[in-house]
């Protein structure tokens, strides 16, 4: 499990939901707040929201899988966001994504089995002048090269054992 994963507590959900009227239009905001708390959207959170707003769970699930902001699985201790906006793409972000797979064995949306690292791609960080950009948790790494990403992984304690193709 990820190091920062927290126990699921009904109280936490109640505190979040209490800030909103029980109306459909606040479902998105509630889900964002729950995800803000846990760094992912636990199933219990979706169930609580559905019950609170009185909509079918299928509708909440439909939204949770539609909007990209939500992750239904816990993220790693270090979450790499590789920007794959156009500026980053033409400066080689796909190579960085491949390199992460090569060295950590994870593709976008995945977490390493030990819960240490996860990878996602983001559309545009608006930091196009720093392309290609990689964000590790909150830290922005500008102008990352195919060899630079290896150093970044190492700097967060990643073991570099290139897996064979």
């Amino acid at each position, binding site marked *: 499990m990820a190091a920062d994963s927290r126990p699921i507590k009904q109280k936490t959900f109640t505190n979040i939901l209490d800030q909103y009227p029980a109306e459909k239009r606040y479902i998105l905001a509630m889900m964002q707040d729950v995800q803000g708390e846990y760094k992912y959207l636990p*199933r219990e959170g979706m169930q609580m929201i559905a019950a609170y707003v009185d909509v*079918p*769970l*299928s*509708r909440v*699930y*439909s939204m949770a*899988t*539609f909007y990209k902001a939500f992750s239904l699985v816990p993220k790693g201790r270090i979450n790499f966001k590789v920007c794959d906006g156009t500026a980053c793409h033409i400066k080689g972000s796909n190579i960085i994504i491949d390199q992460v797979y090569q060295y950590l064995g994870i593709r976008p949306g995945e977490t390493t089995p030990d819960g240490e690292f996860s990878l996602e791609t983001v559309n545009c960080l608006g930091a196009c002048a720093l392309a290609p950009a990689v964000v590790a948790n909150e830290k922005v790494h500008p102008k990352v090269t195919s060899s630079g990403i290896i150093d970044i992984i190492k700097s967060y304690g990643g073991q570099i054992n290139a897996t064979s193709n």
Partner: protein
Amino acid sequence: MKIRIDQQEIDVNPGETILEAARQNGINIPTLCYHEAFGGQGMCRMCMVEVKTAHSTNLVASCTYPINEVIEVHTSTPVIEKARRTIIALLYRTAPQSEFMKKLYQEYKCVENQLEINENERCILCRLCVRACEEIGSSAISAILRGTEKRISTPFDEASTVCIGCAACANICPTGAIELSQTPAGRTIWNRTFAVVTCQRCGQAFATREQLDYIAQHTGIKGSESKLCDDCRKKNLAAQIEQYAQ
């Protein structure tokens, strides 16, 4: 209000959609995602037609376009036919197991292509099942994910706790994409097996326990009445009326 569809002059009520107006007058416009019970969804885009207003000519989805002015409609032009053919070709490769799609693919004389086919799939994402589940069932299924990943499922792809096994989804599906197996032992749908209730009169399995409970809860129809299948209930009713008459 009078409009013209394919040279035919027809009377319409303002606000009515082109598709409704056409169908009422026996003019056929092809659709995949339309059902009278739910109205237009605008998803399959097979019902695109050409609309001429006083100012412009546009291609519109006839199932959602409300008639609010005098217009002239053409339901088939070379451009429209080509678009329909492409849509069928693409949907067929996504749901090649469906006999229905296969028939359409041949009917539209689609040109062969090299696209990979989605071997065991029958679903074309018309979402009639979702609408049926919302209206008749218990909103157990929905369209999940987005873009090219979009599909129909229960939450977490697991047996739904709220599904009542009514099979409204499977019954409305035009392509036979929803797996439904029914044996005397039970009805299996969306990864869940339901106990079936047999008709007290004819012995046919006709509903699931959950379905009857759901109906009882929402309509107040009592248990004893709901233990008969549709046919037998009608016969029962007829017999009662006869009794009264005598």
